[in-house]
């Protein structure tokens, strides 16, 4: 206390100055409108700045909750987007013709899952039993055949791709009409190539000859599959093995058509009777 008193008395001039100057400034600010306004204004500005900084810091503390709320809101908004809604609008084109009764109709579908690099490849499309798709239907795209419907749920179907070791499709050569079965698998895992088997030895095969569907299978006849790449891969028997370059690019598939064959049930029923006879 004594030291404090000594300190104050030593610098008494300064303390007196501070005291009287403080009183004078208080008087100035209290009694002069402009000075009061600007003093209040600047102090408000400082306080506002301080509040702003504190608020900024507080923002960090509640960042977690804010993020959670925002991500929920994002999810809710994303659910409203057009791309997240299921397109239920099916366009089925059937030709009405009294002379020629149409056999095939097509259901357009969008590929929502696809693979090409597996040993057995599958696709998923956004059409299912609700839209009239059944197991075993053929699937084509604008460039060629795609595969066969494997399983069906109300809204989706899985398709066994042509690039599947169990897929066998009846195909024929465009010129000679000789037919064999198109396979993909054990020997060739290239998604751009397939093998045409069971073409008899005597058939003349030319390079770049077109390979089309034969009409014996689920597909309408004459749909292009690919072109002959190599011939004479003889397996030592009386049949040729023909390497086929596929026309369809499976890696960029987006829209496909599911082939609805009106008479397929009738055909199958009839054909099962063949087996009963055996």
């Amino acid at each position, binding site marked *: 206390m004594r030291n404090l008193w000594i300190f104050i008395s030593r610098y008494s001039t300064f303390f*007196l100055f501070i005291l*009287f100057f403080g*009183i*004078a400034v208080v*008087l*100035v600010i*209290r009694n002069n409108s402009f000075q009061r306004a600007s003093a209040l204004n600047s102090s408000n500005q400082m306080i506002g700045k301080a509040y702003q900084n504190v608020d900024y810091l507080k923002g960090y503390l509640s960042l977690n909750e804010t993020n959670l709320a925002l991500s929920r809101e994002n999810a809710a908004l994303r659910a409203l987007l057009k791309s997240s809604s299921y397109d239920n609008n099916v366009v089925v084109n059937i030709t009405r013709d009294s002379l020629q009764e149409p056999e095939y109709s097509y259901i357009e579908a969008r590929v929502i899952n696809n693979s090409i690099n597996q040993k057995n490849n599958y696709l998923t499309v956004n059409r299912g039993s609700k839209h009239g798709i059944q197991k075993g239907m053929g699937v084509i795209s604008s460039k060629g055949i795609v595969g066969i419907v494997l399983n069906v749920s109300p809204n989706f179907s899985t398709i066994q791709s042509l690039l599947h070791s169990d897929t066998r499709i009846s195909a024929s050569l465009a010129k000679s009409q000789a037919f064999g079965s198109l396979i993909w698998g054990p020997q060739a895992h290239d998604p751009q190539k397939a093998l045409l088997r069971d073409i008899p030895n005597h058939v003349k095969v030319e390079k770049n000859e077109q390979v089309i569907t034969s009409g014996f299978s689920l597909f309408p006849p004459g749909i292009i599959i690919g072109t002959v790449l190599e011939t004479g891969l003889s397996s030592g028997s009386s049949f040729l093995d023909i390497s086929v370059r596929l026309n369809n690019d499976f890696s960029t598939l987006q829209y496909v058509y599911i082939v609805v064959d009106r008479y397929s049930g009738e055909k199958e029923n009839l054909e099962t009777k063949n087996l009963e006879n055996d």
Partner: protein
Amino acid sequence: MTKLLLENILRFLLLILAQVFIFKNIGYYNLAAPFPYIMALLLLPVRIPKTLLFLLAFLTGITVDMFYDTLGMHAAACVTLAWVRVIFLNLTLQDDDHDSFASPGIGQMSFRWFLIYAFVLSFFHHLTLYLLENFTLNNILFTLTSILFSCIFTTVLIVLFELIFYRRRKR
């Protein structure tokens, strides 16, 4: 002692009256305004107690403020002047001079010393006054210019008064 008291009171009254009735109306546009009333504080005895000095400075300022309708501004300026006065006297005067009760006028000190003394003190007075009056740092250049010109104006007036009234008396 009584003479000293009377002299100071009389000087104080005359200077305040001159300030508020004459010098208030004199000015070079807005650039320079004289405040020679601070002479009353300048010429207070050298060894006046500090507390009394500050109190007198404050009261002088308040009195002028009442006439100028700027309550507190001249008081703050005069208090600053008192502080600078204490520091200035401490720096420039010898210890034995501090014992003197005489006014630090031209009669006691040299002309050069008094000129610097008046200029420095009026400068700090005007600086505080103008800054408080403007209360903003916008147009600081104009403010500083008017501070300088007012300061010169005030100093010239104070030195003139000193020469007219006190030099003669000494002789």
